[in-house]
């Protein structure tokens, strides 16, 4: 069984992210980390491929900064890594990403499952995940909290997925694209040997020509990045006994028309 995981580097969760005078998004000296959701996808790939005697590949799309995420994946124990980089890919919209991702998976040829973390926190969307599945013509199984059964020989998969009103159990055919949520597993920390191996790894870079992809003409474009408007709050501290505080707070909340 061959499992592919897509990942990317994102600023550390504690990073202060702002837009500079030139309109460019910056995060100062903050470290780049693997997109937090992707750790669960990587862990699931490692567990599932070990159980089935398969192999794992991790892929990033975009510039060199994504090598950080790929090396983290290698340090966790993923078998091989590669990056697809070319003009137009670093600020790709979901459709461009999915077109590229699907072409890369097609080039690998023997893939049974593609895993994603449920969302990319930098671009703030999961659009590319479903779209990768559609471009491949595979089932998309999103927000999966448990892979109940995975059978590469029978080409079947059974998952539990989280929807707003509860948990849906689905049976689907392989190959499939699966996005996973946080409660699917507990990601491992890379060990010393893994980190050393990953540090030495040379990551191959594929171009769009290598994977035979043509980018879509109708992609969406990000035209501007903006800092958040200042949150104008008039802070008011309410003191007193618990009963006095409660009465005063309810008076204020009714004045603010939120009750």
């Amino acid at each position, binding site marked *: 069984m061959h499992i592919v995981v897509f990942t990317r580097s994102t600023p550390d969760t504690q990073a202060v992210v702002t837009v500079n005078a030139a309109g460019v998004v910056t995060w100062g000296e903050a470290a780049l980390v693997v997109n937090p959701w992707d750790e669960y996808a990587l862990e699931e790939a490692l567990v599932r491929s070990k159980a089935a005697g398969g192999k794992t590949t991790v892929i990033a799309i975009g510039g060199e900064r994504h090598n950080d995420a790929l090396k983290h994946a290698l340090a966790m124990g993923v078998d091989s890594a590669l990056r697809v980089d070319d003009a137009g890919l670093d600020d790709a919209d979901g*459709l461009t990403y999915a077109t590229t991702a699907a072409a890369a998976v097609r080039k690998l040829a023997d893939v049974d499952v593609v895993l994603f973390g449920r969302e990319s926190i930098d671009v703030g969307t999961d659009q590319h995940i479903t779209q990768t599945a559609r471009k491949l013509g595979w089932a*998309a199984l999103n927000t999966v909290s448990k892979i109940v059964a995975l059978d590469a020989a029978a080409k079947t998969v059974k998952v539990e997925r989280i929807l707003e009103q509860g948990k849906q159990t689905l*049976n689907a055919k392989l190959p499939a694209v699966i996005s996973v949520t946080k409660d699917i597993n507990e990601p491992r920390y890379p060990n010393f040997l893994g980190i050393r191996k990953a540090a030495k790894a040379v990551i191959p870079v594929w171009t769009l020509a290598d994977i035979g992809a043509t980018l879509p003409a109708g992609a969406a474009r990000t035209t501007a990045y903006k800092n*958040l408007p200042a949150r104008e709050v008039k802070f008011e501290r309410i003191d007193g006994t618990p009963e006095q505080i409660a009465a005063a707070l*309810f008076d204020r909340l009714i004045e603010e028309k939120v009750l």
Partner: protein
Amino acid sequence: MSAVYVWIETYNGVGASASWEALGAGKVLAEALGVPLTAVVFGQNAANVANEAAAYGAANALIGDDATLNDYRLEAYAALLTKLVRENAPRIVLAASSARGRELIAASAADMDSAMLPDALSLSVSGDAVTAERAVYSGKVLSDMAAGGATVYITIRARAFKPNTYTAGAAANVTPVTPALTEDQIGTKVEAFAAEVGTVNLTDAAIIVSGGRGMANNPKDAPSGTPDAAVWKAQDGFAHVLQPLADALGAAMGASRAAVDAGYIPYAHQVGQTGKVVAPDLYIACGISGAIQHQAGMRTSKVIVAINKDADAPIFKLARFGLVGDLYQILPALTAEAKKRLGK
């Protein structure tokens, strides 16, 4: 005929309230583009849901009521939506950014090789282009994203758009549509659905009461032999101190990542960067320090109340009202006051 399509999400044959917000966003776009607003409803009871969509402003409705569409399945729904888009070339296809809406809109946009604007906070039309303002980098930065082409696909963030005024008895021109796939052509089968009962959906909630690490300061003693007293105390606090306040306010219960990671409450309640992004009218943060990753999930709440014993906690920087003290003394008083004022 060109139109703005709004997919109306249903669950057990009832329209989702987030879809009425989508019709609200759709109507503004339809008026700007000078095209009609069309509701797209699939599944059981589609005709009745279409009537409700009409009351919320839809002029037309396309309804697909068929056994293959009863349970929501992406394959079946996306194939039909794409068929309708291919036949009728709507200018816009829009839905609420729910789990189902996000994947359905993304799938059909991919089928059509059309641009998608995901999770819009606001929308504007200029000439042929539609621009969405959206939150990126975990809500730390905003972006403007523009799309053109024959059809633009859009999802909208919950509570970012208002529904149209409800007009009882309004009727839409209803056109039945037939599924694109037969049951044999649909590879995905729904085996079971375990509904969560009695909980308020966090992203739809007007009021959220959230607990953090401070929930472990419960003065109650854990029963002897409890393996982890802090976990027991916090769980007891969520169940018997925070939940009653949420019930009295008709609120959903949220939590910080610290509380979830410590095992105080299930992950489904987590608000923040790796949890849910919420924007209620009122957010009450109890024993939450306000780490940047929590702020990312709640900073656009209209009014934030912070309850924390540490007067220097970062959460007070976002708060409109700050209550410095022991949440185990303050929350029961708030619950009593809520019952008195709201009669619940």
